[in-house]
């Protein structure tokens, strides 16, 4: 192992190969593109967080006293658009998928490196449109752009924001396409489908959704823009059009998009749980197929967002039933993670803390999703804070927790440095406590009848709202701390070595940071995924990979 560290230091890696700005902006190295994404989406995360803090501050008191109602509408809209399209959708796939998919399949790069760079530029171009729409007055339609408000009545920057989301969609499509082709065509010799890490299966399923769903959102937004510009009337009841058609087309993408935000995180959690319980993942085939199952079922449940919008009772019943089905593959994952933990040699490093948080929070978010899929309960809590709490448990409790988990787990691989474990654990605990304090009271608020998207509320709701705002402040500190200690670790962190966690997987068998083409020579895979029994065997050691690292 020591020789490996020594040789990796002597060698050039993807970070120190070239320091010029041009070499970053024109790079086709998937690892550098991942870093470009990481920097951009981190900025957008804090921008979206700023909007969230303003929302929580406004809701500290019952009266609408901090911002005007119009401003409040823009705040929750911009919070939604920035967090969903600029952070959550690209978060795990574009950063960690980009970095790890080629390494995990033993390839030198993604199948289409130039297309990969193009997708980052497309993402940034779309982001510029969205930022421009924010700077010139914002949008107030909600992130869902519901018609006819968005097409006819809103006098805010719907066109610029809509075009921004349209453009970003293509970045997502190209990333998904790149992943699918890479997994099919670029796997190292011996790496059969059933030997792939489950992170790859999760990203494969995500990519299928990106490729099949995003074009529909694209054309829907084109129609909204055309309608706004030329008064086409396709979605305008006044002109004979049907606003419900917009909702159908929008949710056909945007419901599966929820799985774009959660599936990659599930892949992350699977890797981490196997590593820190030193066991092969329980029921590999079931976990792999549950990812595909979620992707397929995800396309069949969109109208559960429209139970009260005026769809027929029969349609509602069928979509309700299909929505319950999504619980099956989701539960398969949760049960298999817990079964993996059973009798494992569990240690509590920071990524594992996030993984535990994920299991708990995702379970709460998923179960409340079943409440909402039952039509009767949905009628009661529709458009209340119950819904807000539910999807934040999935998207923040699941998606962002998975992102933080991945960031800690692969930070040593990406940078070659260890972060300070004590601070990281502290921040993970703060995120967990802050998150629950922010969003659990919102379940109660919603159940008691507080509607979403209002800047004022009756005084009896204040206690729970104060709790929620207090939680949001803790959450903010929990998210700011990693910024500081990760930056600190770049300079002062301990050298990580190729494999600080003794983890399984091809990405750990090369130097940290990896060389530009990932492996000195293409690895040949002769073992199953998560072969922790072999890695931990006394005669084996960890150094199988050092030969590959060269």
């Amino acid at each position, binding site marked *: 192992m020591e020789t490996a560290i020594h040789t990796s230091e002597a060698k050039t890696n993807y970070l120190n190969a070239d320091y010029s700005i041009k070499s970053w902006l024109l790079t086709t190295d998937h690892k550098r593109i991942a870093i470009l994404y990481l920097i951009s989406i981190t900025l957008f995360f804090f921008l979206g967080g700023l909007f969230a803090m303003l929302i929580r501050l406004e809701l500290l008191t019952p009266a609408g006293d901090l911002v005007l109602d119009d401003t409040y509408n823009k705040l929750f809209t911009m919070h939604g658009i920035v967090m969903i399209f600029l952070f959550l959708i690209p978060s795990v796939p574009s950063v960690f998928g980009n970095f790890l998919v080629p390494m995990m399949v033993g390839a030198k790069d993604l199948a289409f490196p130039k297309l990969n760079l193009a997708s980052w530029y497309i993402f940034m171009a779309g982001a510029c449109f969205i930022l421009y729409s924010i700077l010139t007055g914002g949008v107030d339609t909600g992130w869902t752009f519901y018609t006819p408000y968005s097409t006819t009545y809103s006098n805010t920057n719907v066109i610029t924001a809509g075009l921004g989301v349209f453009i970003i969609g293509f970045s997502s499509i190209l990333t998904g396409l790149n992943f699918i082709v890479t997994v099919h065509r670029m796997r190292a010799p011996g790496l059969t489908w059933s030997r792939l890490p489950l992170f790859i299966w999760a990203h494969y399923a995500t990519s299928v959704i990106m490729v099949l769903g995003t074009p529909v959102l694209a054309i829907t937004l084109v129609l909204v823009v*055309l309608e706004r510009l030329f008064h086409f009337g396709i979605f305008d009841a006044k002109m004979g059009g049907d606003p419900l058609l917009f909702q159908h087309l929008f949710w056909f993408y945007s419901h599966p998009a929820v799985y774009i935000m959660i599936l990659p995180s599930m892949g992350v959690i699977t890797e981490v749980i196997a590593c820190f319980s030193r066991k092969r993942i329980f029921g590999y085939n079931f976990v792999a197929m549950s990812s595909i199952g979620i992707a397929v079922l995800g396309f069949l449940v969109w109208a559960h967002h429209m139970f009260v919008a005026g769809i027929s009772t029969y349609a509602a019943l069928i979509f309700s039933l299909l929505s319950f089905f999504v619980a099956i593959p989701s539960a398969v994952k949760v049960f298999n993670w817990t079964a993996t933990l059973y009798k494992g040699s569990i240690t509590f490093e920071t990524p594992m803390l996030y993984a535990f948080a994920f299991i708990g929070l995702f379970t709460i978010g998923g179960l409340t999703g079943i409440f909402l899929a039952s039509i009767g309960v949905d009628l009661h809590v529709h458009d209340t804070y119950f819904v807000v709490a539910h999807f934040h448990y999935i998207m923040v409790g699941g998606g962002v927790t998975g992102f933080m988990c991945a960031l800690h787990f692969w930070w040593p691989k990406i940078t070659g440095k260890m972060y300070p474990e004590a601070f990281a654990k502290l921040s993970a605990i703060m995120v967990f406590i802050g998150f629950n304090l922010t969003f659990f009271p919102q379940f109660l608020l919603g159940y008691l009848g507080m509607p979403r998207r209002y800047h004022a509320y009756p005084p009896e709701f204040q206690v729970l709202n104060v709790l929620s705002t207090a939680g949001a402040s803790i959450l903010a500190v929990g998210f700011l701390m990693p910024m500081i200690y990760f930056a600190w670790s770049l300079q002062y962190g301990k050298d990580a070595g190729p494999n600080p966690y003794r983890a399984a997987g091809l990405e750990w068998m090369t130097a940290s940071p990896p060389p530009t083409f990932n492996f000195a020579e293409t690895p040949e895979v002769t073992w199953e995924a998560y072969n922790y029994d072999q890695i931990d065997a006394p005669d084996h050691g960890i150094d199988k990979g050092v030969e590959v690292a060269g």
Partner: protein
Amino acid sequence: MHPTMASTRGLKLPDSETAVHNLKHHFADLEQQKATSTFGMWLFLVTEIMFFGGMFASYLIYRLSYYNAWVAGSQTMEIKLGAINTAVLICSSLTMVMAVHSAKLGKRKLTAIFLLLTLLLGLTFLGVKAVEYHGHWVHHEVPGANFHFEHEGNYDPRQVSIFFSLYFAMTGMHALHMIIGAGLLTWLLIANARRRFSPEYNSPVEMVGLYWHFVDLVWIYLFPLLYLISHHHNG
């Protein structure tokens, strides 16, 4: 631009040497590279099906709800021009296939001729489409801008406006794809003139060919759905 490629540009290379220059660093061999780009292109076409699918779904839903208006709108279409354009596009698909075939045989001049023919047919299609659009404008059939529709029949004119909205959205998106295709053909013509292609390496020609056939195929569906489907009501 790859430095060695720039320096050898304009020189005539033996075929095997073009092949080596065109192998990207992350592939083991040209075979893997070609299989990869072909798979990627097919996958991209799947996303295109979903893209047009949103509009086809809207078309079908409104056709069911507003049948009479759909018949009225459809009957104003210039079937002759639409049929000419269909023939033009089918011919262009043939010339595209011939271009791919010649590129695989390494016949550079023949490739150029067929690419040029495909491009000209594509531009012809766009020209005829422009004539049709002009006709719609003159007859006040452009929704929002100057819509005024009076023909015999039992329908709500606002619903005919929706028919024309979808007509313009669908044919407009199709025309945009044709324009992008024309750009790709121009790029191929230049690359072909610079001797980029050989019997070993010609995937760009083949990939653009796939794209071109796809755009052609979309029109094969648009023509009957927009022009022909209500024609029998005349007789």
